[in-house]
């Protein structure tokens, strides 16, 4: 079984927002809509200030709250873990937007939109025999564009995948894990002890 997941190495991210721009270019999102964003987190007071850049977006949860609340069944979850929105079914009630703990949903032209992990690229790449996360043609645009090598994509169910190796070698967390949503987005913060 495949479970696509994304990894952001917080030690490497420099907050350049190239992933944000690449996402906007690849998905044609309107102004103000950023399916991939990078937060700039500043902690402490001068001179002991620390800074972290945190890529965020749809976490493609194992148990997505947006899926359960959607009254129109526009939000669906594929077997490979990718959460999608059917634009022809969505009524734009925004219930998914208030149900998402990651502020990943945007209402555009009256319907909900969000990061799709560039699902079309993944499907087309797989059909062409390519490996998502390894072959750029089959990999999400944000990951391809990352100048620092901070973003990674792959199948966490495959023990030999790039993302499985990164998770094994590093300490990581997922955002708001206590809510039980099971995000498919991991953050690396230090080497494994």
């Amino acid at each position, binding site marked *: 079984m495949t479970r696509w997941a994304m990894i952001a190495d*917080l*030690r490497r991210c420099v907050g350049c927002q190239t992933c944000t721009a690449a996402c906007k270019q690849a998905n044609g999102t309107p102004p103000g809509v950023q399916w991939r964003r990078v*937060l700039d*987190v500043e*902690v402490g007071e001068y001179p002991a200030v*620390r800074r*972290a850049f*945190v890529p*965020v977006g749809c976490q493609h949860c194992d148990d997505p*709250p947006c*899926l*359960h*609340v*959607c*009254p*129109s*069944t*526009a939000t669906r979850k594929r077997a490979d873990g990718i959460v999608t929105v059917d634009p022809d*079914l*969505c*009524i*734009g*009630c*925004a*219930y998914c*937007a*208030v*149900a*998402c*703990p*990651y*502020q990943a*949903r945007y*209402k555009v*032209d*009256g*319907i909900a939109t969000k990061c799709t992990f560039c699902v079309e690229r993944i499907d087309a790449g797989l059909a062409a025999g390519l490996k998502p996360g390894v072959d750029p043609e089959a990999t999400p645009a944000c990951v391809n564009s990352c100048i620092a090598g901070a973003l990674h994509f792959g199948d966490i169910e495959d023990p030999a995948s790039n993302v499985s190796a990164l998770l094994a070698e590093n*300490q990581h*967390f997922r*955002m*708001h894990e206590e*809510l039980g*949503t099971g995000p498919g987005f991991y*953050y*690396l*913060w*230090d*080497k494994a002890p």
Partner: protein
Amino acid sequence: MTYGPRPWLQQHWDVRAALNFMLGGTGSGLMVFLAITRAESAWPILVSLLLVAAGLGAVWLEIGRKLRALHVFFNPFTSWMTRESFVALLLFPLGLGAFLTSKFLPVAALAALAFLYCQARILHGAKGIPAWRAPQLVPLMVLTGLAEGAGALVLFSSRPLALALLAAAVIARAAFWMRYRQAVSNDALESAGKALVHIGTSAVLVLAAASFYVAEAAYLAGLAAIATGWHFKLALVTRAALNQGFALPRLPVRGTR
């Protein structure tokens, strides 16, 4: 300790969504109490249905694709919004039946109670909003709707039974507000909560007692119960709905180690 930007107010649901909870809560609460008190007149049943319809109409104005509104019925398996719509579909014919013959009133009241419960679960299902997802909100929302319904009932009939039901409903609402407040800390709800306790409970009880001497005080009691419930729901949806924000449990360890 976590790091990250502070939560901010959700911008997706505004006063139109709040109106669904306000009007729908009052309308369905009224239907419940009309069945309990065996309404003298059928007209309050119609008022109850009109309130629910107005609430649903208000929320319809909020959706992005209005002509696709029927898609709301597609997910009864997990979505409380779909379930609310199905219950509304039952409530209207049953309510109209009750308007014509009181035999239908108990069943219509059950549908109204189910509608009220669905509304409470809609908010509880919004996991991205801590003030809404608290399980303590579910009974509070149901009781707020019932208290508003009892307030509306008193506007139509100030019989002692109606006043007793109003008193019981506002006391229960205040008790569950305090229970909710212990679980959820939200500054934006403080003034609405105080109004719920002082005006919506204490003043309502005093006015209800005074109505035995000055009959008009009953109307004031009813209005106070409704107004404070609406104020609370409006604050809950439009001012207290801070999102989850982002929180890093760890900061990155940079450099070699």
